[in-house]
């Protein structure tokens, strides 16, 4: 664990109550013992399909939800413990969020300049002149004409709106931005522009990103390390080059294999069967074992632990359990 990690997430649990069955609320375990870190200037790609819990994780990190277990430390402050309110208030200015849907991320009744300036407004302490200067500066930074500030969101295309959202995210010079599928709703040519913009901004301002996506190819362009989530648990974390070249976890492999390539001659492996299990009644043992081509007897009984399998790589799979392996989770064997 890096000593100066900007973001430290340990054993994060999140359960939502969904309806009642027989008098007791039914719980959906959306996240289970999720742990990762992000350093300064680094991008961690968080990859998963529906039901993986990736969006929930992102929102917990910016204080929108309170986790039901585990801890989150941002800039050294614990935003989930007893002092969470004051800690969150202290680091709020350094946190930001970029949303998936550019059409829902901006208040249609506010001028673009006002939307961008809102974080500055809320934080307070700047004169009107300062604010509009900063807004113009931000618009230029994201590649939009300066007179955009007077316009309304509906006058812009999806890709342009996403730039506005990014401008708003940069308003208070954050250190850490959670990007929740920021390009999924955009056309391919626009995706590339936005991803490049994000990378340029990272290089210039030393930003850290948690880049949440389901598109492995886009993540590959922007991330330094990649964490794969399945049904609420992290199954693999590794540096980018290694995870794409030699995926360890069977789910990661299946995921990579399933991504269509622009190559009509590609020979692909057998398509993975089944679907993501229900989070209210997950299968016993490893949650992936029902679909895993390499499942063993043990997999339906024991939940695998996230262990370091190679330097800098962690995988949670019974296939990779040599006798002597470094345990990274602190909690006691259950």
């Amino acid at each position: 664990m890096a000593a100066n990690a900007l973001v430290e997430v340990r054993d994060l649990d999140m359960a939502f109550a969904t309806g009642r069955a027989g008098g007791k609320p039914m719980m959906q375990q959306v996240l289970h013992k999720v742990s990762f870190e992000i350093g300064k200037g680094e991008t961690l790609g968080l990859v998963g399909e529906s039901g993986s819990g990736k969006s929930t994780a992102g929102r917990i990190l910016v204080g929108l939800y309170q986790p039901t277990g585990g801890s989150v430390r941002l800039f050294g402050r614990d935003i989930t413990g007893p002092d969470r309110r004051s800690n969150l208030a202290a680091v709020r200015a350094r946190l930001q969020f970029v949303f998936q849907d550019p059409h829902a991320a901006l208040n249609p009744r506010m001028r673009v300049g006002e939307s961008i300036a809102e974080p500055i407004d809320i934080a307070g302490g700047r004169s009107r002149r300062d604010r509009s200067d900063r807004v113009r500066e931000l618009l230029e930074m994201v590649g939009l004409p300066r007179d955009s500030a007077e316009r309304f969101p509906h006058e812009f295309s999806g890709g342009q709106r996403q730039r506005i959202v990014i401008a708003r995210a940069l308003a208070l010079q954050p250190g850490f931005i959670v990007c929740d599928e920021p390009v999924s709703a955009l056309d391919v040519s626009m995706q590339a522009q936005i991803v490049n913009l994000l990378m340029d901004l990272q290089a210039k301002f030393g930003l850290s990103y948690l880049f949440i996506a389901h598109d492995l190819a886009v993540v590959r362009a922007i991330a330094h390390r990649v964490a794969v989530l399945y049904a609420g648990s992290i199954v693999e974390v590794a540096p980018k080059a290694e995870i794409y070249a030699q995926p360890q976890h069977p789910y990661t492999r299946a995921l990579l294999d399933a991504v269509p390539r622009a190559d009509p001659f590609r020979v692909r492996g057998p398509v993975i069967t089944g679907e993501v299990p229900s989070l209210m009644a997950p299968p016993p043992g490893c949650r992936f074992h029902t679909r895993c081509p390499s499942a063993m007897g043990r997999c339906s009984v024991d939940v695998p632990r996230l262990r370091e399998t190679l330097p800098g790589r962690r995988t949670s799979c019974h296939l990779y359990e040599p006798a002597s392996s470094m345990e990274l989770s602190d909690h006691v064997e259950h």
Partner: protein
Amino acid sequence: MTPAPLVSIDDLTVQFRTDRGWTTAVEGVSFDIGEGDCLGVVGESGSGKSVTALSMLRLHARGTSRFASGVVRYAGKDLLRAPEGDLRAIRGRDIAMVFQDPMSSLNPVLTICDQISETLRLHQGMSRAAARGRAIELLDLVRIADAARRVDEYPHRLSGGMRQRVMIAIAIACRPRLLIADEPTTALDVTIQAQILELLRDLRAELGMAVMLISHDLGVIAEFAKRVIVMYAGRVVEDAPVDVLFRRPVHPYTEGLMASMPSLEGDAAKLYSIPGRIPDPDEAIAGCRFGPRCAHAEPICRAAMPELVAIEENHRVRCAPRSRPGGAG
């Protein structure tokens, strides 16, 4: 002699009524679909791919849309001008369609059985019992486990992938000769997408039907289609067999699109992006609509809209510089 195509679209132009008058959504679209063909149509938003598909079955609202020109030939009829009764007989029976959003394509207050049976009883006059039996067969065919039980469930109990399979079951119920799939996997997870595409491939082989798959994802097209049509801003810009298109794309937009696709192999450097943005349908652009964004544009590109020209057998391109004799890139 090549057999007559199953469906032939010739110079299709569709316009929609907006606040500012009639805007052209697609113009001059021409291509053929043969029996058993596997056609991929790729394009971004505003390319007109969905509009074209809906036009083939004349599904646009009557008052706000019009066909300014063109013919859609099927079985000796012009589907754009045939009486509504003829079209109703064709929809769902000869030509079927699967849409993008599985969450809203099924009626939430009817069971799966009801929805599949509807098309069977309508087109084949089946009795209720016979239709139910066939519905279960179809659910098996689209690989839904436990079909006999699932058939009586309501859509909300099914996941997105399963709903899409039900949509496919409804579409193939009457063994159509052409299945149009408009972004059938876009709203689904990647692993489910792979399953659905495999299913479509297998069904095509088993039922001998032609499939027209529309997608914005070049990877999906590459892995599924045998022939590809690339559309941009309402026009067909390239039409080629899949291996030719991906090995030697000719139109600059096709090249740009392929270059912007983030890849899982090779150098993970900065992504290429085509400069500029897709034009609005009512934006007036002189000549080729890709011109303003094209690095290879020449004065002739602004002079007039280029024609769709065959530069080699089975390979057509709408680009003046590249369709000159000896000019193909």
